[in-house]
């Protein structure tokens, strides 16, 4: 997925010398053409993220559109106060591209996992939070970001996510209907969308018609669409590879609680505010956190039974 973003920015940077790309010494995956063809637009800032975000702000104050790239915890939490003061308070054209959403780096340990970033980025005024599910969405949203003013945060996976079989269009700020269903709605964000699809298949076998909506833009969130589903469904669920505190589920909970429809069945699927002491591949950890398709389907069935 990261190449979908990187290549989109690269193509634009070739045409526009005011587009800059900074990395925190993790740009080794970038094509050599980047360094060769953009010598004054591409900078390896070294392993110094606070400086990197400050430099990004200085470039933006000089009229540049800046993309900053690193692994999520380093490019968000490590430089959080620079993101707050230098980028968001000054409302600058700085786009933060974080790789390694959720549990992708599960075998590396929690230093490299990212289950806090949506909450932290979402709470910053002026920040937009983008969480594509696959390379197709990442490419389209990166393209759209070229015309978005002010700060954005891209939460992207790693490099191995497959392209969807059938192409479709997504629009920044608008939820995307992935699968139609009339009983319940699952709102999902990021690469874990695939688990929502597995769950929906299992639910069909249990005579539950599950709709899936992909919230690829968590901020600004598609409030109108979410309120519509709160009004017209028996139950709504959220699914994310992130702490249930602060993330997509929390954003939807805020809408649910202010919607005037408090009777709706609502449950958040995500990491339940814990750092596991064990490590593992993403699929293993999804299972351990009960955010795999099977666990989600079972939990939804139980939720509907008990109400």
């Amino acid at each position: 997925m990261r190449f979908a973003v990187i290549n989109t920015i690269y193509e634009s940077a070739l045409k526009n010398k005011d587009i800059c790309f900074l990395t925190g010494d993790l740009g080794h995956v970038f094509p050599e053409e980047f360094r060769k063809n953009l010598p004054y637009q591409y900078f390896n800032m070294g392993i110094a993220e606070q400086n990197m975000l400050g430099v990004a702000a200085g470039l933006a104050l000089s009229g540049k559109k800046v993309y900053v790239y690193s692994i999520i915890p380093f490019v968000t939490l490590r430089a959080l106060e620079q993101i707050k003061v230098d980028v968001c308070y000054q409302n600058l054209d700085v786009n933060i591209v974080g790789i390694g959403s959720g549990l992708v780096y599960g075998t590396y340990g929690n230093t490299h996992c990212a289950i806090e970033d949506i909450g932290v980025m979402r709470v910053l005024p002026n920040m937009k939070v983008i969480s594509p599910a696959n390379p197709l969405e990442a490419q389209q949203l990166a393209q759209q970001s070229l015309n978005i003013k002010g700060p954005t945060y891209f939460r992207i996976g790693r490099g191995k996510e497959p392209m969807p079989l059938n192409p479709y269009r997504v629009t920044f700020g608008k939820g995307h209907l992935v699968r139609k269903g009339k009983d319940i709605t699952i709102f999902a964000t990021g690469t874990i969308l695939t688990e929502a699809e597995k769950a929906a298949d299992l639910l069909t076998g249990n005579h539950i018609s599950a709709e899936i909506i992909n919230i690829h833009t968590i901020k600004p969130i598609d409030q109108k669409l979410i309120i519509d589903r709160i009004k017209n469904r028996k139950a709504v669920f959220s699914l994310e590879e992130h702490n249930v505190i602060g993330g997509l589920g929390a954003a939807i909970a805020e809408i649910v609680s202010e919607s005037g429809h408090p009777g709706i069945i609502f449950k958040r699927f995500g990491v339940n505010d814990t750092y596991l002491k064990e490590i593992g591949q993403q699929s293993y950890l999804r299972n351990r956190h009960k955010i795999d398709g099977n666990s989600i389907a079972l939990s939804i069935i139980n939720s509907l039974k008990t109400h």
Partner: protein
Amino acid sequence: MNNATLAREIRKTVLKMIYNAHGSHIGCAMGIVEILIALYFKVLNIDPKNPLMQNRDRFILSKGHACAAYYATLAARGFFPKTKLDQFMADGSPIAAHVTYGSLPGIEATAGSLGHGLPIGLGMAIASKQNKTNNKIYVLTGDGEMDEGSVWEAIAFAGFHKMNNLIMVIDNNRFQSEGTTASILNLEPFETKLTAFGWSVSKTDGHDVEKLSRTLKKTHSSKPYAVIARTTKGKGIKFMENDYIWHGKSPSETEYSEALKQLA
């Protein structure tokens, strides 16, 4: 108006602003007045009537808590009418007790949390290199502020990449919030550390406008440049000088009258 008269007028403005607003950081503001005069009246290529002039020199007050002196200097230089300063720290006003981008003409970046100005200035310096313009970027930091790791990240990058359009002025008053820099986290001598990081370094009297101007204007072909300006915190008001309590204290009515007398 000569340098000494201008400095005295700016100090009077600072005293009135901080006293009227019950503000703090008066010692920090008083100590940087001559540095600001040297920059805004002698060194910077700027146009107060066109504050966004293309290819202008940039100045960032990284020790954003000393902003009363900065605002007073910008007013004295003609960026905006002095009456604007009546809004300093007032309800509903954009003019905060820490520098805020967009609040007044001439302000280039927000500061207030320490250790942010040099990285931002470095970004501006990189942009100038990209654009092939000859402007210079000046950042004023405090010697206490040098405790922040982010300053050293920027120092390392600027030195390694030979950012010769970046100038850091260190307000070397030897005090920080709770006492002397020597007793809290001694980073002296700055000169050898900065030289080791690939910077060119000068030391000068931070209250001599002419010496400061000459030092700040020195050209350096292949290195970023640091000017260590020896200053007195609270300069101009005897009972405030070299007393760290005036980092955070607001002057009482009696202290205000006494200070005004000393600046007369």
